[in-house]
């Protein structure tokens, strides 16, 4: 949870620190071998997604199991603007976020009538429903299994008025292409939104609206007994968090202009839950850390295959080495989800507060009681 010494000043330091860390990612990620644009974009996009999810789950206490649906809706809406209007990402993203906001409003209106696990199941069901629809009936809009892609035949009304080019033009921001600066432009574009999203989430957390949400999480009944109608607050939180997810989906489409239904699957929803939990529920930076750790681990683990493992264990006697390689190969490559599942369970069992709680524990052990009393 939030520290007890919160001043506008400490928030400013937190925000500036966060900004610096994010903007300097291409430098300090070098030694980890993660400083290439594709991966850093993923960090930023999923960080944004997790921040948004945290506003609903961490602050308001509603566990949504269908948040990936908003990513999908955001992506589809964005790609449609690319197809019909212009390859400039700004209008496309605005449209994507708006559409997912409206979608969240509808879903939230239905789901928020129930609490607890009813809510989780309802969101899960509705997300599965959207996923099924995207694969079947809505094929004219979503292009089914192939996924929505750009073609040379797309009208792109605004672009064609300005220039007549051949081939599919790249996505751009007022002329600067996403792949400019060796792909770093795409990353910085996402990073700006991540920082913006982080700032908004600080503001929400510190506002009276934020304390209202935490009040709902702690004891909704009591909130209602004080004569307060909690519904608009819950709905607002749901829509905000849906728009964050929509923005993440839009960014995915902006850096790589296609959209597929598999982004909406329940596994994707489960992944963001894991990111938030791993980082630390209800903390400000936790979700971003969780998202980065998981995407980094996914990148590392799924790249390892059996031949790498055999080489790794080659210093050992043959029998042991090949045995170890066989066992560990279950957990890497295509088996990465197994590692993810185990990690998920371990975190929920032993470290419900996530990495942030782990850091707190280590701090407390290192600095002893003095530190704790200073903090209070």
């Amino acid at each position: 949870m939030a520290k007890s010494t919160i001043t506008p000043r400490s928030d400013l330091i937190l925000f500036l620190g966060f900004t610096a860390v994010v903007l300097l990612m291409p430098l300090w990620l070098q030694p980890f071998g993660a400083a290439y644009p594709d991966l850093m974009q993923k960090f930023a996009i999923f960080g944004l997604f997790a921040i948004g999810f945290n506003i609903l789950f961490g602050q308001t206490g509603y566990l949504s199991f269908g948040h990936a649906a908003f990513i999908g809706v955001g992506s589809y809406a964005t790609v449609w603007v690319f197809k019909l209007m212009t390859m400039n990402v700004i209008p496309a993203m605005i449209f994507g976020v708006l559409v997912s906001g409206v979608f969240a409003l509808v879903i939230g209106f239905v789901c928020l009538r129930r609490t607890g696990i009813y809510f989780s199941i309802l969101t899960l069901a509705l997300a599965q429903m959207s996923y099924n629809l995207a694969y079947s009936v809505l094929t004219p809009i979503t292009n089914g299994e192939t996924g929505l892609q750009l073609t040379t035949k797309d009208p792109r009304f605004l672009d064609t008025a300005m220039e007549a080019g051949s081939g599919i033009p790249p996505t751009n921001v007022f002329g600067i292409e996403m792949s400019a600066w060796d792909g770093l432009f795409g990353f910085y574009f996402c990073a700006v939104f991540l920082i913006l999203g982080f700032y908004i989430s600080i503001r929400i957390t510190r506002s009276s609206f934020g304390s209202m949400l935490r009040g709902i999480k702690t004891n909704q009944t009591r909130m209602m007994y004080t004569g307060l109608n909690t519904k608009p607050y819950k709905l607002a939180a749901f829509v905000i968090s849906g728009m964050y997810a929509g923005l993440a989906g839009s960014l995915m489409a902006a850096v790589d202009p296609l959209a597929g239904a598999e982004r909406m699957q329940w596994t994707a929803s489960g992944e963001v839950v894991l990111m938030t939990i791993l980082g630390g529920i209800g903390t400000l930076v936790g979700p971003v850390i969780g998202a980065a750790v998981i995407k980094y681990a996914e990148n590392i683990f799924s790249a390892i295959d059996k031949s790498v493992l055999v080489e790794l264990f080659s210093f050992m006697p043959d029998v042991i080495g090949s045995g170890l390689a066989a066992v560990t190969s279950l957990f890497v490559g295509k088996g990465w989800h197994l590692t993810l599942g185990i990690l998920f369970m371990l975190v929920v069992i032993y470290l419900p507060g996530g990495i942030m709680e782990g850091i707190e524990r280590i701090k407390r052990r290192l600095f002893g009681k003095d530190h704790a009393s200073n903090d209070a």
Partner: protein
Amino acid sequence: MDAIFLQILNGLDKGGAYALIALGLTLIFGTLGVVNFAHGALFMLGAFCAVTVNKVITLSAKVRDESVTFFEAYKDVPYLEMWLGDTGSLIIDWSIPISLVVAIPVMLGVGLAMERGLIRHFYKRPHADQILVTFGLAIVLQEIVKAFYGANPIPQTAPDFFSGTVNLGALIGMDLTYPTWRLVYFIFSMGIIAAVFSFLQFTTFGMVVRAGMADRETVQLLGINITKRFSIVFGLAAVVSGLAGLMYTPILPPDYHMGMDFLVLSFVVVVVGGMGSLPGAVAAGFLLGILQSLASMTEVKSIFPGIDQIIIYLIAMIVLLVRPRGLMGRKGVMED
């Protein structure tokens, strides 16, 4: 008219599967107060019990094929056929009923291990934590199965005796040809449901469990070890769900993610039926199964395209908006 009857029949077997999973979910929730997201994985494990048994009894050796004389040809002949002749082929043919015998102790063991090893540490934790840890467990179980059996569905066949179709309409003058195994599945699920209900209703053990569901503390004060009994109930629910998956294999070739597909729907079934109500779970299971198969009729689909994909969720939404507690939900269950 015939078509409608046929669709109702078609819904019964799917409804049976939903009802059995939902029954297990409700049982676990009613006794232990735990939301088990890994219940679909138990369904899947049951199905893979059938696959494993089938693999074991059809272990084969390569034998020279005498019928081909032009070149050296080999064919796989299962050991059982070599040793036992026709009896061996009969055993292979009946592999699914045989695997039932294997699956019951296996699923009971899995259920008890799950409850004792993991879930009991989560009784006092919030529901969100329970959902998350069982969700993680479901992923782990799924991935283990995937690692051993691959990602492709593995078709299973019903015994020859039950393959083919029966004409149910002959008696009432209608034309209702229906696959025999689906009928078997329906009867099987009804049998299991009846067994579970009479176990709870007519045995002393069941009486204690029901008392524990109503008021756990008082039962404990009377000196009864209710935790032990609830663990057994968890094992029982695992068996029910596993058998449901096992018997479903000839209808739907099992793959590693079938559990999750069924789980989402079964949760909807539980919500529609009413959390904590066993009859509600069963009734809603069959109801939604039948509605789903009615919605997949071409006549209906031509009016509402895609209705077959979403009918269950639509019904769930309507039920929750009109009767928030579900069709037969009890007051005071999961109201916080």
